[in-house]
């Protein structure tokens, strides 16, 4: 130690003192700066803590929201009452890594006893491969998953998968459509709203009512079986909003089956199919003629002889062979009378009218499957004549029934919609005067009460309608007599129609009960009548006394026989 403390060393006190004071001062200054720095730091930290915990404690909620509370992928499709028509369920699928399996034989035996449709042989082969991944069974039920877990097999694992499920099976197959295995919509609403369904929590609310849909389906399927028809379609539409309440097309398919349905079953005959409508088209002819002012309800036409237009002879199916008044022409469905009426109005005006009705262009609808109507390019007298009773223009059943809705609702045409509430900005326009519409209501009621549509009646519910029987085309000509479509279009209750209904049977055959007849009045009309009887109490339509003077004053229509030579 050279500089020991005890060493007496000459000290220059002055120098030491001055050194001490400057050093102390500097240390003081430094520590004060540091202190201020620390204090500022603490104030900042305290401020921040206060900010987080007192002033902005509500932000906690935002933080919590970052966590998803659901993992369901594709949105639901609901009916108008919130019933789930399509939803996505997460399921588990069992797979195995054969390399991890200790005893292949034991595993194969256990799994094959659990799933009788998986054979021991195929399982054994699967599990003995050199792969590292083989499916055992996909989309298990929770019970099955638990059972596999219970086996305690090493090397068997589960994978989470999503599966589109349609709880109502076939009931709404054509409207809702279906998806492929990767949950991409490939038909119906599933396809049309594919994009918005993918975005989470965006359900599609349809205007369909499953209860009404079922009644329509039930009666239509029964009718189809009874009359040995090869196909059928039925539509119920709200007259005021043009919302589709029910829509069925048969034959159909089960969207829960992963197999791709065949073309015939997947074809939506209600919207995609276009057909010549036959006599039900006379509703439009009559409304057009009445609205043009060329005829009134007291007018009449001579239907005693066949009528020639060009090279065509027009005959009546239910021939009366005399002069018929306008109401009689409608109730007996006279072709001759309709043709004469249409020719009085003229082909040009007829074309204008059908264009205004939107029957000459595809109809806007929330389905990818909509048919493009067919109309003649040359629209002369011959065209006008055949179109007047429903031949020469082919439209989809939905277009037909939507047109009828505008005939009975006071004359306003709207676009049909499958979405609850419809599209608010959807255009609507007047096609006939409310006065003509009122006459049409009376005429349609007459046709059901006393004309060809008697079997479509449902006592108390004031049904109105029109029957039709349209021959089917094959190649260039019309095929034999027993090959036709039978139609009924109706509305109820006629004093202020709430719903319009269309029933179409493809190639119905006459039976003993109908005395061999297979026309619209004998086959489709009774189906419609049954449906109206069943759904009216359900949707809150009260039965009324049809003979009461109040109802008669609204719906009565005279149809005097005209005595002319």
């Amino acid at each position, binding site marked *: 130690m050279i500089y020991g403390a005890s060493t007496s060393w000459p000290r220059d006190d002055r120098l030491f003192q001055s050194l001490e004071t400057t050093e102390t001062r500097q240390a003081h200054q430094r520590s004060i700066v540091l202190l201020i720095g620390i204090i500022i730091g603490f104030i900042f930290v305290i401020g921040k803590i206060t900010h987080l915990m007192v002033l902005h404690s509500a932000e906690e909620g935002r933080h919590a929201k970052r966590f998803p509370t659901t993992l369901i992928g594709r949105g639901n499709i609901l009916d108008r009452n919130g019933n789930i028509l399509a*939803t996505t369920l997460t399921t588990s699928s069992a797979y195995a890594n054969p390399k991890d399996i200790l005893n292949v034989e034991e595993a194969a035996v256990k799994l094959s006893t659990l799933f009788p449709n998986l054979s021991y042989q195929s399982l054994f082969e699967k599990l003995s491969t050199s792969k590292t991944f083989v499916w055992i069974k996909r989309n298990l039920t929770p019970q099955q998953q638990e059972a596999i877990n219970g086996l305690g097999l090493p090397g068997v694992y589960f994978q989470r998968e999503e599966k589109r499920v349609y709880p109502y*099976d076939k009931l709404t197959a054509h409207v809702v459509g279906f998806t492929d295995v990767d949950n991409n919509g490939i038909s119906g609403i599933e396809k049309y709203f594919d994009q918005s369904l993918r975005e989470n929590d965006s359900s599609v609310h349809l205007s369909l009512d499953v209860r009404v849909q079922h009644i329509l389906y*039930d009666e239509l399927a029964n009718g189809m079986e009874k009359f040995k028809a090869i196909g059928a379609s039925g539509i119920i539409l709200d007259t005021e909003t043009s919302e589709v309440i029910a829509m069925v097309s048969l034959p159909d398919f089960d969207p829960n089956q992963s197999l791709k349905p065949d073309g015939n079953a997947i074809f939506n005959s209600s919207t995609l199919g276009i057909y010549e409508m036959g006599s039900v088209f006379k509703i439009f002819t009559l409304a057009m003629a009445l609205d043009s002012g060329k005829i009134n309800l007291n007018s009449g036409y001579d239907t005693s002889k066949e009528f020639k237009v060009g090279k065509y002879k027009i005959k009546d199916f239910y021939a009366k062979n005399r002069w018929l008044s306008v109401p009689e022409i409608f109730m007996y469905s006279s072709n001759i009378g309709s043709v004469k009426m249409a020719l009085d109005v003229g082909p040009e005006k007829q074309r204008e009218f059908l264009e205004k009705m939107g029957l000459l262009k595809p109809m806007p609808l929330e389905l990818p499957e909509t048919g493009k109507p067919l109309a003649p390019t040359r629209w002369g007298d011959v065209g006008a004549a055949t179109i007047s009773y429903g031949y020469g223009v082919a439209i989809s059943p939905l277009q037909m029934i939507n047109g009828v809705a505008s005939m009975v609702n006071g004359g306003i045409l709207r676009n049909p919609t499958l979405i609850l509430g419809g599209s608010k900005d959807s255009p609507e326009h007047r096609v006939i005067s409310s006065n003509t519409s009122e006459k049409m209501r009376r005429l349609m009621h007459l046709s059901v009460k006393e004309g060809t549509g008697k079997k479509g009646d449902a006592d108390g519910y004031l049904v109105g309608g029109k029957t039709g029987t349209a021959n089917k085309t094959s190649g260039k000509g019309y095929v034999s007599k027993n090959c036709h479509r039978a139609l009924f279009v109706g509305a109820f209750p006629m004093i202020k129609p709430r719903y319009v209904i269309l029933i179409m049977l493809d190639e119905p055959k006459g039976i003993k009960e109908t005395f061999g007849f297979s026309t619209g009045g004998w086959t489709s009309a009774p189906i419609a009548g049954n449906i109206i009887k069943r759904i009216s109490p359900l949707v809150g339509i009260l039965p009324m006394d049809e003979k009461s003077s109040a109802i008669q004053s609204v719906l009565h229509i005279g149809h005097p026989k005209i005595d002319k030579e």
Partner: protein
Amino acid sequence: MTSSVLRNITALTFLLSTFLGGVIYHIKHQVLDLEQRMQGINRQIINTNETIHILKAEWGYLNQPKRLQGLNNKHLQLRSIAHYQVASYQTFPTLVASRQHKGPDRIIVARKKEGSIAT
């Protein structure tokens, strides 16, 4: 500034920082704990939501009108309501009053109409 004051401040700062350190440590652990609980609860919510979702689909499946109709045909044999079985509230008193017999129905309805209490 005397050195004793400085010493006091240093001690105070030291104490404060130790205290705050302790508090922050405590809070941090509380937060971790809460976050863990939240994750657990969120997992539960997801599971419950999925269960509800499955139950809703199952409810729809069990309520298939076709199935209900089949059950009705098997066990109840109820038929659709006929038009003569339906009456509105408005027409009800007149329906009862218009009956031929002079049963108690008629009297009660008539008295209720007048607003007096039936005795």
